[in-house]
């Protein structure tokens, strides 16, 4: 946290970048959970972040779970061994995958060896993140209504040689059979680049 003071001037280090990206995931997942109504809206509270009012869960268990994941992500991001984070939203009743939020992470592994921070202001990064989160909010215009009660799953794609930590298990990709994919904006910290995409079940459109 001490780094925050001079970040604007100092530029981006690997650790800072991992932190920013992990933080984005935290808010992003919260936003998705709120927007898509996975948890009841009254369990969310408003916070100001990225110049936006975002909703963050107050549910202690969920909070705890997300924190764990984000901490784990941060570590992996720092090691540059994570490739993708996927939020899978599936129906509770029949476990059918309805939506799939995919965040592809491109790590610049060269940054591991670098000692000098990269040049990019925090404001610029925050602006980029803001537009991604705004898009997540705006997706209601085309996403289908989730009519059944849904649960979510987090999938993290890492490099193959990673040992699966405790409480994590290996999983399939959980693709949607007949899906429409929409690419969202991306942002980059110059070390980590995050491309977002949402896939949803295609109805029998004409």
């Amino acid at each position, binding site marked *: 946290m001490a780094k925050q003071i001079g970040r604007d001037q100092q530029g981006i280090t690997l650790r800072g970048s991992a932190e920013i990206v992990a933080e984005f995931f935290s808010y992003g997942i919260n936003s998705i959970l709120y927007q898509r109504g996975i948890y009841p809206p009254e369990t969310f509270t408003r916070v100001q972040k990225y110049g936006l009012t975002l909703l963050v869960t107050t549910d202690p268990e969920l909070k705890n779970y997300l924190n764990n994941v984000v901490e784990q992500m941060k570590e992996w991001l720092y090691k540059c061994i994570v490739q993708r984070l996927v939020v899978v939203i599936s129906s509770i*009743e029949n476990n059918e995958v309805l939506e799939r939020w995919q965040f592809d992470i491109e790590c610049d592994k060269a940054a591991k060896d670098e000692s000098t921070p990269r040049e990019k202001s925090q404001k610029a990064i925050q602006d980029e993140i803001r537009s991604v989160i*705004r*898009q997540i909010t*705006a997706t*209601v*215009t*085309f*996403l*289908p*209504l989730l*009519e*059944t*009660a849904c649960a979510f799953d987090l999938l993290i794609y890492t490099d193959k040689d990673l040992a699966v930590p405790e409480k994590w298990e290996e999983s399939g990709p959980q693709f949607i059979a007949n899906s*429409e*994919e*929409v*690419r*969202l*904006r*991306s942002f980059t910290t110059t070390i980590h680049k995050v*491309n977002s995409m949402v896939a*949803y*079940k*295609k*109805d029998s*459109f*004409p």
Partner: protein
Amino acid sequence: MSQEWNDEWELSKENVQPLRQGRVMSTLQEALAQQETSIHTAAQLRKQEFESEIRFYSGDDPLDVWDRYIKWTEQTFPQGGKESNLPAVLERAVKALNEQQRYYKDPRYLNLWLKFGNCCNEPLDLYSYLHSQEIGTTLALLYITWAEELEARGSFKKADLIFQEGLQRKAEPLDKLQAHHRQFQARVSRQTLLGLEEAADEKGPDLLGTAEPQRSSLADLKGRGKKKVLAPISRVGDALKATNRNRSLQNPTSQQLSNSLHFAVFDENSASGPAIPVLTPQPWAAPPAPKAKENELSAGPWNSVRRPHSSANSGMEVPCTLPNFTPYVEESAQQQVMTPCKIEPSINHVLSARKPEKEEDPLQRVQNHQQDTQEKKEMVMYCKDKVYAGVEEFSLEEIRAEIYRKQAKKKTEEEMQAIAQKKEEMQRKIEELEKKLKKDDKRQQPHEQPAETRESSPPLGLQGIAFSSAAELGEKQPHLQSESQLSEDTQLHKAACSKKVTQSPDVCPDMQGGSVFLDSEGEQEDQRAEANLSKKDVALLPPLDPATFFSIFDESSTSANQNISCSTGHTQKSARRPLAIRKSSDCITAKENLPPEACDELNGIEPLTEDAIVTGSYKNKTFCANPEDTCDFVRAAHLASTPFHGVVAQRIPAPAYSESALKEDCPESKSTPLNQQMPICEGTYNEALCAKKLSPIMEASQEDTRSSGSSVSPGSSLSSVTQISTIKYLHIPEKLELAQSLPAEMVTDSGGISENVTGDDITQFLRGDEQRKKLLDPMPESLTASPDFHLENGSLPVMVFEKEFELGSETYCIKREYWTNEEYKMFFAVPVNFPQLDAKGFAIKVYSQPVPWDFYITLQLQERLNTDFDQSFSENCSCFLYQNGCAILHKDINRFTLGDIIRGCKAITEEVIILVVYNLLGVVEKLHKAEIIHGDLSPEVFFLGDRICDPFANDEMTSALKIADFSHSLDLRLQSRISLPNSFPIAQTPYGQQLLAKSSFPYQVDLVGIADIVHLMLFGDHVQVYQENFTWKISQNMSKTVGSDFWNKLFGRILNADGTQRRGDEEKARWPQEALLCVAFLGRGI
């Protein structure tokens, strides 16, 4: 990276309505991108496609088109609103698919309604309507949507009730419904708990009743009243706010009530109490009118408001002076009533359709529509259903174009297939001939120069082409003939001119020169192809030795050869002879193929006549003279200009061809060449005009092309040659089809009166047809349950004279055609197993629509008349309903009709007439007793009964006449609304027009029919009437007949039934009894 294409949807996300099923991103992007350019050409085109698909859908699932259309609309117009026209589309869809029972359990149909509900002011009304109509009551979605709406309005109790109802009905998918119900219950209990907590926190339970109510915001606080000034109490409580969103004005007492109710609903103990209303299905016939109109003032008296007399000097008040300014009137206030016109929005932005006067609830409109259909008072005389089927209005031209395109496409496909086939055949032929030729050449070589041998093969190739084109196009033959007589350039010119002629919509075998090259206007593409073909022929002609070519036709038209000077110049080399002979034999076979082909081609024209389009699929027909009718125009033009006459005469055969596809049409083709010299008889003329209603512009253009066509070869010997040859060809079908239909004969026989028969046949397709279809859809059980009713799969068997066909399990052979027209055919047939031509056999009535009306009437008669249903009617009648028509089989019918007697006998003895009249009146009386109007009584519809035909029959028991045809009948019990006599065929006859002009008494139609029959039997011609002292009399002098007194009386009575019959309804059916008595009495006297 992908920001460019991502932008669009995000930038206008506020303008995109979320959809339950989500959106397709590509469509969304496209739609939003197009919005900027504001050119929706693609969308417009697609929309047009849907619109026309709705109109011309021929499958069995019309809902599918609508479903796709609506989904497409939702996707393509993300911002909804006026452009998408979604409410209108939904409304149309709901109207169009109204009362389609088969869809009631279809989730798509329910979805349609639910979407429509969102456009309504009061969706709840719609839901209960759906419930009462059993639409989608087996589907969970209805209950879920309904309950959601109720929940949103705060009526949790009702919402729960809806869920209960759905669960009780086991609505599918049940688990989904249950899940929703559970979630609903969870939400409600949570909310209640929260409410309880809050209430406990803030006020405490004991303060609940005395809690101070809050005022509603923006409410009027001014004091009212004279002595006691009271501020209006319009307060709202917390709880009330939650339950009632849109009703703010309620008095505190009810508020308290609702407060307590609010908790009572969720009290487990009282939930099972009797206080809960039970959801009872409402017996609604139509969707309810919207009740929740906002801002509605109840009407009150105006005069009770007094002008306040505040001061004494009120009397001094200056009377109102005129204001010294002119009030500004907005232009839009005096909006002119615009004629609705169709504007392509992508072309013209300036003009727009006028907005509807009032905001009306779509639900109400649908309701009105349903009521309208229930009591249909208006008869639509054009294909209104097609014009207004979709959301956009189609012009008749568009519909016509669509039909035309369809046919053209079909034709082209067929043609292409045929051509491909013929090509193969041709190839084979060429090869064969080449082989033969080689042999021949080998023999001939000693006599001929080598150059000529080389030359001899092109003619052969051409021969192949000539043969094939003659076989496939039929008309090529004469064309080639004429071509060969002309120089090359004139040929080309002719080909061009013939093209012109064929493009005119009213094609008929024009006998002059190249215009023999007949073609239906239904396929211009084909024409082009054919024109190319013919050009190819022309191109191939020059190298050909003309003499060689002519030898082909030497056998068939020797006279032609004599006329042609050039052929004499080139004497045929003897060596060529064998070849030429072979060719001509080929040609003869080709010629034999020709006439039916020509007929086919002509039949292809028909569907483009306006009957099919303007009057709506052959159903309705305007009978009365109509100023709009271009027939009248044509008639007038005919009178005005003499040259026009010839043109008209030429045109006649075309409609005649087209009128009867099955008739194969002989008399017309026979008369064709004659028409050019002789004025056509009036009957045919009328018929031709009636069948062809073309716009004046079209007529004019026709005239032009025709005259230009004839100017090419004005009466030259060449054209006469072609005439002769064509006549020859056209005679052939006549020989093949000797059986001429009776009505056709009648036309020529009866000249001026032909309207009675042919008019009925051709021009008058029942206006009640559509209605009948509806009446018999779904088939009444009495019909389908009848043992004589057979529902057959597949299509109607083809019934042609002297041909055998199968009906049910029997095979019949048609022995006689009574009459045929496009819709109805009446045959006399015998079973093949009993081939002897018996006097008795089967009458088969074929109707080209799957509406067994005759059968229905017969059954009704049987039911209504009971014991009176006797031999006057067809007692053994069975019905075969096919997909595209129905056939009604009457057993034990005598071969001859009353018409045969009238035609066959010069003078009918009075006894016979009396007998017939007696029976006639008896039959009609029975019909009327059963409240059935026959509508088209003519000698043709009465088969002779056993009393006349069978000498051994028991006089008392049998009837002299049998009536089996009810094509134009009217069941007054069902169709009482359209009982105007002038819609019957008989009303089109001169006497009918006179007699029925002012009458609205339906029974009279049959009286006129009787009068006519009697008159026909007495004098051999149709009745002619005049009026004297308000009494109708017949023009014919009666005195020469024996029982003149009696006949005068009879006619007096029958003709003046209307004037004397101003009686009650119940008596109306009783008139014939009197006449009958009178006849019986007088009959004995003679």
